[in-house]
């Protein structure tokens, strides 16, 4: 049994010692915490409850003795059997792919080549299975969605198949092209950042 004596210590030291004691104890070792003030007792109780640790409290005068039956990590650790139905095959979820179009060219080094590559990229993108969940356009990339863009029909096709088309509003305003974008929704940094953050894969030509 491991004893953590927090008598005379002021908040948050009792909690720190408690946590330390729980991590240092062996996984099956009982941990006993001595606490001499009600505020710290209340905090430690709350901490143990929130971290799903079973405990009992015995009060002897002004001293409280908190006994935690299971030692080990004080963070939420569940038994495997709580979450994994182990006789079922492992399912792989659909991967969430987001394409980020950040300029009018693909790659750098030669602008003419880059322009051709970008057109080729979109032509190939529509053949991808499954289709990307979203395509986000920012900086000069928004110009790929202009009404006279060589890849507009590919973008339309993606949109029709359910791919989200998101155009950065700041960029649209910067280039003054608001009226010339027939496809896509006007988006902002917050939405674009969230799309990129939640993606499993990001393709950036």
């Amino acid at each position, binding site marked *: 049994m491991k004893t953590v004596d927090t008598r005379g210590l*002021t*908040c948050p030291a009792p909690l*720190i010692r*408690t946590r330390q004691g729980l991590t240092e104890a062996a996984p099956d070792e009982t941990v006993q915490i001595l606490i001499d003030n009600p*505020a710290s007792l209340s905090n430690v109780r709350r901490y143990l409850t*929130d971290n799903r640790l079973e405990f009992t409290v015995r009060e002897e005068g002004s001293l409280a003795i908190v006994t935690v039956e299971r030692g080990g990590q004080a963070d939420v650790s569940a038994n495997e059997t709580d979450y994994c139905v182990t006789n079922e095959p492992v399912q792989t979820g659909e991967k969430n792919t987001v394409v980020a179009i950040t300029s009018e060219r693909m790659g750098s080094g030669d602008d003419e080549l880059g322009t051709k590559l970008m057109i080729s990229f979109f032509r190939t993108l529509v053949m991808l299975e499954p289709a990307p969940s979203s395509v986000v356009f920012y900086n000069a990339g928004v110009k790929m969605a202009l009404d006279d863009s060589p890849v507009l029909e590919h973008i339309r096709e993606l949109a029709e198949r359910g791919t989200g088309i998101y155009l950065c509003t700041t960029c649209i305003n910067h280039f003054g092209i608001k009226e010339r974008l027939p496809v896509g929704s006007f988006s902002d*940094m917050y939405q674009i950042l969230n799309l990129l953050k939640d993606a499993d894969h990001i393709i950036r030509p």
Partner: protein
Amino acid sequence: MPFDLLTTVETGGCSSKIPPRQLEELLARLPLQVDPKILVDISTHDDAGVYKISDETALVLTTDFFPPLVSDGYEFGLIAATNSISDIYAMGGTPLLALNIMMFPSSAIPLEVYSEILRAATTRLHEAGVSIIGGHSIDDYPPKYGLAVIGVVHPDRIITNAGAREGDVLILTKPLGTGIILAGHRLKMTTQEQLEEAKRLMMRLNNDGARLMQKYGVRSATDVTGFGLAGHALKMARGSGVTIKLNMSAVPMADGTYSLAEQGCIPGAAFRNLDYTERETLFAEGLDYSLKMIAHDAQTSGGLLMAVAQAKAGELLSELQASGHPEAAVIGVVEAKGDAALVLR
């Protein structure tokens, strides 16, 4: 050797605020003055009181004081002064005048410390265009310092807890962590740099934040202080009749905050704030425990939490980041009122 003010609060001093739930119950029993010129009072749980004196001008009143959080008298004065005018900024106002509120044990601490505290506060307030025109001191231990502040705001441009609208996003202008880091410092668990960063954050004025809020027509904001991010967000959600959803992984935190919380360095005030929020808060399944407690960590002189129309958020955020708030971030959204007023994930 300069006097170390932290020696006067060695007995815990686990954040001096009365637990929020008890405070609210107590205040609810007070008779409210019925006066149409009182535009904002304690019934909307706001940052300051507002009183209309003409069609163009309303007065904003607030006060704040507390025992020392740092060792040096001058730094304590800077923090206390910055903190005391923060509530005026949170209402979209401009602070003008202040009164010192000082409790000082003149027989236990050198009077030099008293003058250092006042010198710092005067300097900081002058920078903000505020004049200290009086005050009051009494002998008391441990020492406490703060100010009563009066400012002005246009009656049609008051920023309250009540204006958040569905579809708004929430921007936080300063990182969290001052409560945890100060507690960690007392237990010698922080580095000097971590402490210095926390102090810099507490000494940073919210004036640019207020200016930008008025520029972009923000109608709802609060400053994040003693009730923690979650406590203040909840007050805003209740005041506006909406649900606020916060994404803890988007919330900026001062260096060291997370690892201190992981080690159990969670001040008691965080638990009291949790006590206050939990009945109306939904904590997402799998929300990291340390992040949950950081959300409830009582802050000193924290940043502004503002509800901004989504279309304006990007530009407002850039301007904030360019004007001394590099860590400012979008941390959540406002939705129509659901079962829980606050959702934390």
